[in-house]
C-alpha cells in the first residue's frame, strides 16, 4: 500500500474514534441525555438485539426486494427512454415540458397517493422508488447520450457507420460511464423512495422499523436501524461499481482521463 494511502486511512480511523469517543464520553459524563441522544455503545447493543428479533430478516428482505424491484423498473425504463429521446429529438421536444413539470414535482409527495392506490404492501413502495429513479435516470442518460464527442460521431459517419451502428458502437459505449454514474445515484434514490414509503404505511421493512422505533421513543434502536440502512446502501453502491467494471471492462478509467498525456517517447 502506498504511504499516502496509509496516512489517509489513519486519519479516517482517527476521525471515527474521536467523534464516537466524544459522543460516548458526553453521555457518560452527563452532558447529553441518553434517552434522546443514545450512545455508540447503546446503539451497538440495540443492533445486536434487533438482529436477533424473529421478524428481522423479513424486514430486511422486504426492503431489499422493494428497493431492487423499484430500481430495476425505474432504471430500465429510464435508460431506454433516455436513449430513445436522445435519438429522436422531435419526440424529446414534444415531451420536454411534461418532463420538466413532473421533474419539478417533489415526487415523494406522490407516495401517499400510491399507497392509496396500491395498498400498504410492497407494490406501493416499488412504484414510489421507480418514479423517483426513472426521472433521474432519463435526465442523466439523455445528457450522457448528448455529450458524446461530436468528433467520434463524425469519424464514425465518415467511415460509413449506419444509424444503428452509430448507436451501438459509439453512443452506447461513450455514454456508458455517465449512465453508470446515474445508476449509482439511482440506487440511492430507490432506497429513499422505499424507506419513505415504508415509513408512511407498511407492516414490514426497515422504514417501518424506523417509524415504529421513533413512535415508541426507542432512540438506540432507531439509530441502529439507520446504521443498517447505511450498510445496505454502501453494499448496493459497491455492487453497482462492481457490475460497472464487469460490463465496461475497466473502460471508465480510460474514458474519464482523456487528457492524461504520456511523456513524449521515441515516437512523437
Amino acid at each position, binding site marked *: 500500500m502506498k504511504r499516502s494511502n496509509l496516512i489517509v486511512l489513519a486519519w479516517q480511523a482517527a476521525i471515527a474514534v474521536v467523534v464516537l469517543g466524544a459522543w460516548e464520553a458526553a453521555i457518560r459524563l452527563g452532558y447529553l441525555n441518553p434517552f434522546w441522544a443514545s450512545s455508540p455503545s447503546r446503539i451497538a447493543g440495540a443492533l445486536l438485539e434487533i438482529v436477533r428479533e424473529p421478524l428481522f430478516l423479513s424486514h430486511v428482505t422486504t426492503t431489499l426486494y422493494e428497493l431492487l424491484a423499484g430500481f430495476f423498473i425505474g432504471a430500465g425504463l429510464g435508460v431506454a427512454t433516455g436513449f430513445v429521446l436522445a435519438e429522436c429529438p422531435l419526440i424529446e421536444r414534444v415531451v420536454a415540458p411534461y418532463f420538466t413539470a413532473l421533474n419539478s414535482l417533489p415526487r415523494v409527495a406522490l407516495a401517499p397517493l400510491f399507497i392509496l392506490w396500491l395498498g400498504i404492501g410492497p407494490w406501493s413502495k416499488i412504484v414510489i422508488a421507480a418514479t423517483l429513479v426513472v426521472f433521474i435516470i432519463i435526465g442523466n442518460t439523455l445528457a450522457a447520450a448528448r455529450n458524446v464527442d461530436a468528433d*467520434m460521431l463524425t469519424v464514425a*459517419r465518415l467511415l460509413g457507420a449506419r444509424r444503428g451502428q452509430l448507436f451501438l458502437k459509439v453512443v452506447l459505449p461513450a455514454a456508458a460511464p455517465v449512465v453508470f454514474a446515474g445508476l449509482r445515484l439511482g440506487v440511492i434514490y430507490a432506497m429513499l423512495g422505499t424507506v419513505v414509503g415504508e415509513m408512511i404505511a407498511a407492516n414490514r421493512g426497515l422504514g417501518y422499523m424506523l417509524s415504529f422505533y421513533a413512535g415508541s421513543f426507542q432512540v438506540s434502536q432507531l439509530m441502529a436501524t439507520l446504521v443498517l440502512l447505511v450498510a445496505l446502501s454502501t453494499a448496493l453502491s459497491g455492487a453497482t461499481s462492481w457490475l460497472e467494471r464487469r460490463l465496461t471492462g475497466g473502460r471508465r478509467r480510460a*474514458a474519464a482521463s482523456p487528457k492524461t498525456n504520456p511523456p513524449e517517447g521515441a*515516437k*512523437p
Partner: protein
Amino acid sequence: METTRERTGATGSSDALAGAGMMIEALGVGHDYRAPGLAPTPALIDTDLRVREGEFVALVGPSGCGKTTLLNAIAGLVMPSRGRITLAAAPVTGIRADVGYMFARDGLMPWRSAIDNVAFGLELRGVAATERRERARKYLALVGLEGFAEHRRGELSQGMRQRVALARTLATEPAVILMDEPFAALDAQTKVIIQDEFLKIWEQFRRTVVFVTHDIVEAVTLADRVIVFSGRPGRIIGEFPVDIPRPRTASGAHDAAFEHLRTEIWTCLRQGMGAP
C-alpha cells in the same frame, strides 16, 4: 471509369488533363451559410476544382474562406447550395465508402485500443475480426506504431493519436483521401516528422488527396498543385503547380525553387485577403 467528359475546357488545365482519370470534379460550387433569422451569407462562390486520379492537391486560404466547406461538400457531409460535384464520375449525394477523411482532431474512441480504432472502419463494413486486425496491424506499422497496438487513446501522445487517425483513414483503402488541416494541432517538430512519414506513405500509394491547410510551407512540401482561395466569400484566385521532384522530404532544407514558389503563393494569398 474512363468515361467521356461532357464538360471540358472550363479551366485551362482541364485540356491537359483530358484523358487522365478525373477523380474529383467540382463545377460552379457555391455555398451559403444560413443562420436562423439572418440573410444567408455566401461562404464560397463559383468554384471549379478538378483533381486527377492520384493527384495531391492542397487548398490554402485565409480562415473562413470556404476551403473546408468545399472539402466537406466533396466528402458528402455538406450539400452545397449551388453547383455539382462528381467523384469518379458519380454525383456526390452523401458520405461514400471509398472516401477517407481526416481532420485536426483525432476522434479516437478512448475505450478502444489503437488497433481497434484503426480497424473500426473495416468493422463497420463487416470485415471478419482476424482479417481486419491483420489489416489494421499493417497500417499501424506503416505509421510507425506497431509497438502500440494495444494502447488506448489516454496512453498515446498527441502525435501518436494523429498517426492512429491516419492509419484509420488509410485502413479502409479509400480511393480519395480528404484532409482538413490534419497536422495543425501538432507541435512544430512532430508536425515535420509526421509530414515526412506521410510523404513516404503517399509516394508509395499515390491516392488522390485533397489537403486543406493554412500553412503554405506544408502545402508546397506535400502537394502536386496548390490552389489559393480568397477571403470570405471564398473563391479560387490562384493555382500553382509544384514541380519539385519526388521523393520529397519535409525536414530537408528548402531550395531556391521552393522559396520562390512559397513567396509567389504568399503574395497571391495576401492580395486575396485585401492586404497591400
